[in-house]
């Protein structure tokens, strides 16, 4: 075999998409929930704030755009996190997880290929949800090419977190409840425009996972600002740190799981 990693990636891609296409109802329900949740958040916020603080007019429109970008980023990150840990829990209970560890490929390699494969599906689902939200709210966002860069760093950080959670699943097996709390925290963190903070708050916010990338995405898509290279450098360093940390924690968890015999008995 000439390109084993490419073969593995394509196998993961086929597996992911076949399962999606064969049972599309789950994805359709997922998209519906994402859109309807945003609609009620939007309607609720408008109602509570009242017409004076409305999300219309020039500043209101920017606020809404920032809200949409923040919401969609949160959905993407949460779906990356929950898909990774849920599928791992599910595979552990059905026995396919052990089969993955019987592969001559390193398990980290297999899961990285899986992450790439499932990302293609996640992006399609989030893309459809975003289109529906834009149509419902009449919002317009910019999609400049430079968007790819902070989106890449955002996903690197998100997958770093996902690998750390996946490692936790290998050792403690059930993380659904902990994950719920983490997701809520991330939803708040990524939905708030922390990039507009000043002083120490700003510095601390930029050390939090994914926050600098989310700020850049809001600047590019909602505020129509050009890419801030200084901030991008911070976002890249942040992404590399969390991705590395995620890989490290996953590899360490795998060692612990093998040492304690935890790869089975779920």
């Amino acid at each position, binding site marked *: 075999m000439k390109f084993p990693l490419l073969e593995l990636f394509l196998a993961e891609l086929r597996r992911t998409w076949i399962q999606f296409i064969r049972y599309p109802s789950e994805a359709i329900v997922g998209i519906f929930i994402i859109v309807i949740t945003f609609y009620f958040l939007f309607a609720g916020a408008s109602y509570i704030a009242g017409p004076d603080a409305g999300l219309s007019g020039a500043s209101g429109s920017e606020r809404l755009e920032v809200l949409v970008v923040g919401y969609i980023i949160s959905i993407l990150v949460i779906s990356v996190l929950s898909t990774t840990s849920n599928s791992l829990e599910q595979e552990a209970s059905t026995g396919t997880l052990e089969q993955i560890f*019987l592969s*001559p490929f390193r398990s980290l390699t297999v899961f990285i290929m899986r992450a790439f494969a499932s990302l293609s599906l996640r992006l399609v689902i989030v893309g459809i949800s975003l289109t529906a939200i834009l149509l419902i709210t009449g919002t317009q966002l910019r999609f400049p090419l430079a968007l790819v860069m902070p989106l890449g760093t955002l996903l690197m950080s998100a997958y770093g977190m996902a690998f750390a959670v996946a490692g936790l699943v290998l050792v403690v097996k059930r993380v659904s409840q902990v994950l719920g709390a983490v997701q809520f925290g991330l939803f708040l963190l990524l939905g708030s425009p922390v990039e507009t903070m000043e002083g120490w708050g700003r510095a601390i916010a930029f050390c939090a996972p994914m926050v600098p990338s989310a700020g850049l995405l809001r600047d590019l898509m909602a505020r129509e600002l050009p890419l801030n290279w200084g901030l991008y450098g911070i976002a890249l360093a942040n992404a590399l740190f969390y991705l590395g940390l995620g890989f490290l924690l996953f590899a360490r968890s795998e060692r612990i799981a093998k040492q304690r015999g935890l790869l089975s008995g779920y």
Partner: protein
Amino acid sequence: MKILQAQGLGKTYRRGGQVVEAVRQVDLAIAPGEILAFLGPNGAGKTTTIKMIAGLIRPDRGTVAIADQNPHRDPHALRQLGAVLEGNRNLYWRLTPLENLEYFGVLRGLSRTEARRSGRELLERFELSHKRDAAVQNLSRGMQQKVAIAVALVHHPKLLLLDEPTLGLDVEATQTVKGLVQEIAASGCAILLTTHQLDIAEALSDRVAIIRAGAVIAEQPTQELVRQFSGASYQIELEGNLEELLEAGVRSRLESQGIVMQGNRLFVRGAEALYEVLELLRPAPIFQVKKDAADLTEVFLKLVQES
């Protein structure tokens, strides 16, 4: 030459403040084409041993070599290994058998083309070609197990680990899986089989290893072990009731020699006594004479209870 060589395997767990020695000094070796039945009561250490062999649990002591490669140090050793693990589905239920074979083939290091070719051959060999496009979740339990075995073989491993392969299968599916296991061994693959169905172990295995409380207490060729535990008792069955066929004098002589009589049967201890009894029975019509042989179940129970 041995495909599997496990030497001095040991594993200790610390759980709830207690130290549990799950596996102690286990040595196992299997040659190509050989079936080793690895038997033991629940919690004896079978699954821990199998998972140490498969690289899923790191042993505290000892070494594992699959075709001379250590799966804990060299992941390429896993190319020589296939496994169907107990209590698990081992398959993606939403995929078809062929899609599972293709996916797991690539995961084991084959190209898609190779995996597809090997998958089609296995489906044909396992008489599953007509189901190759049905989702696994719609197949019967027996067919799912056949697909799981096929998946374990898709990359042509030299060693196959089968942990309770007939668990939960009906009689017909059990017979099919038994046939497959024999066929796989005949093709040269070494097989490590665990099962609680001892009749299956006896019918399939070349050798038996019995583990209890983490240690192997017996390891021998199956028939030799059974023979060792078989007594020198004989059973003579007549073509009618003993009281009708034998005179009272003959019956009392047999009784005085310690022969047990029941209905149309006599139970005799030792070969010499057998010939004496046959003389006494003449000319009563004899239906059959057979030696009382132990089966693996008796051997297993004796060994496990004695130790």
